[in-house]
């Protein structure tokens, strides 16, 4: 019950200030918002080593192809550096690949495609940061793409974003002989280089 109450309060804290700011110019220096969407990591190059319960050392290198869709739900704050450059800090919950959901912390630099900046729709961006997951090493996240901004009102805009992502993560490893997750003390290397595409939309206040 308290969790639900907290979420409702969080929603209210996002939306109420936005509505009460109505009438001000949207092109302020600071903005905030929520972004959500889907991503597909279509290729992963994995490398792992571990020791089996019988004492053998197993090394595995593999390329995985997947059509699995992951979801992203992120909150962000952004600051306009100039009329055509702005920086945004993102965090929330995102899926990197099958079985790997992380809490990302990333910084995005957006560059408007014309000199009037955020008044016009198109911008390209690059983004980098890290992802945190319980019981795993920190993952690296890099993204790049294009954002189309629709200014809905003087206090609100809609961003439509498409791009590609490249992540370096440390997935859980399963022993295919015992069909169990390899415990940390038996795990040597576990790394995965993942690439894919994503689509998202965002409400910006």
């Amino acid at each position: 019950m308290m969790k639900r109450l907290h979420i409702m309060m969080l929603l209210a804290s996002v939306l109420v200030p936005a509505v009460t700011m109505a009438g001000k110019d949207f092109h302020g220096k600071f903005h905030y918002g929520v972004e959500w969407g889907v991503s597909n990591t279509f290729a992963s190059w994995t490398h792992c080593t571990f020791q089996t319960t019988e004492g053998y050392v197993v090394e595995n290198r593999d390329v995985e192809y997947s059509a699995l869709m992951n979801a992203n739900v992120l909150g962000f704050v952004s600051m306009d550096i100039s009329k055509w450059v702005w920086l945004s800090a993102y965090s929330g919950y995102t899926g990197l690949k099958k079985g790997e959901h992380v809490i990302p912390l990333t910084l995005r630099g957006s560059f408007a495609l014309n000199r009037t900046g955020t008044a016009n729709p198109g911008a390209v961006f690059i983004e980098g940061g890290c992802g945190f997951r319980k019981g795993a090493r920190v993952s690296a996240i890099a993204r790049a793409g294009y954002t189309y901004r629709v200014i809905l009102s003087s206090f609100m805009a809609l961003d439509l974003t498409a791009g590609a992502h490249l992540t370096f993560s440390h997935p859980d490893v399963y022993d295919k002989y015992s069909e169990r997750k390899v415990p940390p003390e038996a795990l040597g290397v576990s790394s995965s280089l993942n690439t894919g595409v994503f689509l998202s939309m965002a409400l910006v206040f």
Partner: protein
Amino acid sequence: MCLPTYAAGSGPDVEVGVISSPRSAGAGVSFAPRGNSRSVLRLYADVLDMIGGKHKSPGVKADYHLMFSHSPIQVNDDTHLVLSIGPGVAMGYVSDTDFDHGFAAGVSCMASAALRFSRVPLTVSMDFSVTAGFRATQKSQFDQTLTLYKNGLRRCWIPELTIAYRF
């Protein structure tokens, strides 16, 4: 779904939108203003508990609501707020608190707060819907159950965000 009130014949007849939420992802259409009511038909994937990884595959759900709203509240020069509520029906092939999918059907009610913009023909709405119904599952020929569709009631607090284009 966005549900602004229009005088008959004066407003747009059709709105088409995308629904996104931790519980649903899909599309909706609202149409045929008649007096102060508006029909809303939605078809969406039931993705409840998929983000957390509890469920691996989505269900599918459809609902229809007849929404009633008051006159729009002017927020600023280019934005109006429309609050609406209405009864409806819902059905689908969905999972519940267990892991199995099953056919569910019931009566429904939806409340909506929509921001309608005049700069662009878009409406952004936050909706809450509750479904009271039953769900039938069949694990085998001799293992069939009919239970209350618990998630329709327990998860109604999760908002659904709709971004709709007004034609």
